[in-house]
């Protein structure tokens, strides 16, 4: 029983950064913007979170720094694609390349240093309840944020007027503009929200998952988050499900390596990436279904006429 609980806990820890980054990107894509810079914003959050936590000794300041750095970094993308109408695919790629380089440079002095770790929740009485105690009341704070965030985004997108407006912009920016909606302003806010989420997801990696700084420590998680959004056909609760499936794959391959299953460890390590491909193929096979769910103006630049 204890082993099962432990495995469930590690799956949650592996799923949390994927969930947060994907939920942020979902909001961005619902507004009609494709930001391929998730990996870059995430690694900036990771290095910023670690750095601030290490230098101040407070993981909470690290957490705030991770969010802030992700948001500021996404602003670069917003200015380029929204104000200068650059190609979103190319700009997102350059955000990722820049983030990987910049974080490597900023983190040189952090390599091998012990980091600050966010403490797990510990409520006297509740956390000690067998089995469910640790699952419900004993996880790291970002886990709870991730669940709350998913619920909040679900509510925002489908139950509020602003959320409806955001979705309408994603489906037709020209119509939304004609109705007098500030398309660019909404998209700025969406992109910055996505950046803050990606930063937080990166912060989870360097403040909870492995409290240290390792170069390229995001290891493609930002890209998997992007794939999750497609997999979930832009629905928050499916992102949640997808993130936990991927968390399970990630943890499953690590456990298989630890148990010494006679399969090359590299093959096991490549499973999350292969799983991403398989899942993408399965979901996109039905062309009509994909077309129906994709925000119609996703990835297209918009320049308001005067």
């Amino acid at each position, binding site marked *: 029983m204890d082993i099962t609980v432990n495995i469930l806990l590690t799956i949650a820890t592996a799923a949390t950064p994927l969930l947060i980054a994907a939920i942020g990107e979902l909001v961005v894509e619902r507004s009609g913007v494709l930001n391929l810079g998730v990996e870059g914003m995430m690694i900036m959050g990771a290095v910023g979170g670690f750095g601030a936590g290490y230098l101040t000794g407070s993981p909470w300041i690290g957490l705030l720094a991770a969010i802030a750095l992700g948001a500021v970094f996404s602003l670069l993308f917003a200015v380029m694609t929204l104000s200068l109408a650059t190609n979103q695919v190319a700009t997102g790629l350059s955000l990722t390349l820049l983030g990987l380089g910049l974080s490597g*440079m900023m983190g040189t002095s952090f390599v091998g240093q012990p980091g600050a770790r966010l403490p797990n929740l510990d409520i006297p009485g509740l956390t000690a309840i067998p089995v469910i105690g640790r699952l419900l009341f004993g996880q790291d704070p970002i886990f709870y944020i991730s669940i709350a965030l998913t619920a909040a985004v679900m509510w925002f997108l489908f139950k509020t007027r602003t959320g409806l407006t955001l979705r309408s912009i994603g489906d037709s920016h020209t119509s939304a503009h004609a109705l007098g909606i500030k398309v660019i302003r909404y998209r700025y806010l969406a992109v910055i929200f996505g950046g803050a989420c990606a930063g937080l997801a990166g912060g989870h990696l360097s403040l909870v998952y492995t409290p240290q700084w390792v170069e390229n420590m995001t290891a493609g998680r930002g890209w998997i988050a*992007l794939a999750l959004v497609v997999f979930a056909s832009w629905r928050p609760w499916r992102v949640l499900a997808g993130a936990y499936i991927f968390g399970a794959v990630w943890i499953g391959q690590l456990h298989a390596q630890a148990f010494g299953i006679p399969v*090359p460890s590299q*093959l096991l390590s490549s499973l999350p*990436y292969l799983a991403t*491909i398989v899942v993408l193929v399965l979901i996109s096979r039905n062309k009509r279904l994909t077309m129906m769910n994709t925000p119609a103006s996703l990835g297209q630049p918009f320049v308001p006429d005067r």
Partner: protein
Amino acid sequence: MMRLELVKRPQRSMLFSALSPFIAFALTIIAGAILFALLGVNPLMAFQIYFLEPVSQVWQLHELAIKAAPLILIGVGLSVCYRANIWNIGAEGQFILGGIVGSSIPVLFPQFEGPLVLPLMLLFGMVGGAAYAAIPALLKARFNTNEILTSLMLVYVAQLFLDWLVRGPWRDPKGFNFPQTIQFNDSAILPELMPASGRANWGFVFALVAAVLVWILMSRMLKGFEVRVLGSSPRAGRFAGFGINRMVFFAFMLSGALAGLAGISEVSGAIGQLQPVISPGYGFAAIIVAFLGRLNPLGIVAAGLVLALTYLGGEAVQSALGISDKVARVFQGMLLFFVLGCDTLIHYRIRLIGLAAPTLESAPKLEEAH
């Protein structure tokens, strides 16, 4: 509050089309100066070490050619993809597979020598890269799967596959357990161009030939026209009878073959054996090369040399000033950012509304006077 406003130009600006890479480079230099100043280094001194010292001697020019060759080869192939609006960002993986498949000859048949070895290896490398690129192409053509994500995921898979090979079945049995294959025999080594003055090998010649061939393809042949039509207006392309799926395969496999050629050239030329890591991110840097070179094969040659210089400069400032050589990646990222931003000027005028509007608004009017 101040905001930007874009005003569409009646036609694309030839002036900015030519100037934008240079403006982007100038902006990168300015941003780089700020970066160096923040790191507590005199920017002028840093730039001298970064951009001038790595190319001040003949043998260093050879090193520049070694770094530029893969960047140009890959960048030229990617330019065809991006022109066709097909997003292959997995060139790094195709590079690795080219290196692996090409190396299978000297690793598995170390006794096989003679003039046939090298051409076969290069051919195998191209086939390996093209075959690996065919996977995302097939998934896109057959299942409509997003090629950006699949081609990128395959990079990680390729890296792990290479890692497994050199630590497992292909490890040199007499190599003291180092994760590497045997040293290739002499007939499997790509010859140097001018051994008297430096290490540069035939890879650079391949790069130049590929650039010229792709330039001819794109500007003088029907296939190139097809690429451009499908890229700018898929609907018009369909009416003209151009098949999108065929184009997906063509663009992916051409760029994959060139990336594979770059991979095997790097392994048999600069390295001489397989190691766990055979690329310092050439496949990703080549994306920047393609855009900096305006997706034009001849421009890409120049852009490849510039990016190669950023690699050498990064190594130089690391050894001279103790700054991390990651600074090269930062320069490369900034360069791409500024190129993309400057390209906006080709299609739009930029007006600042709000603060300081009068002075800034007068700028585009000056240009109208031409």
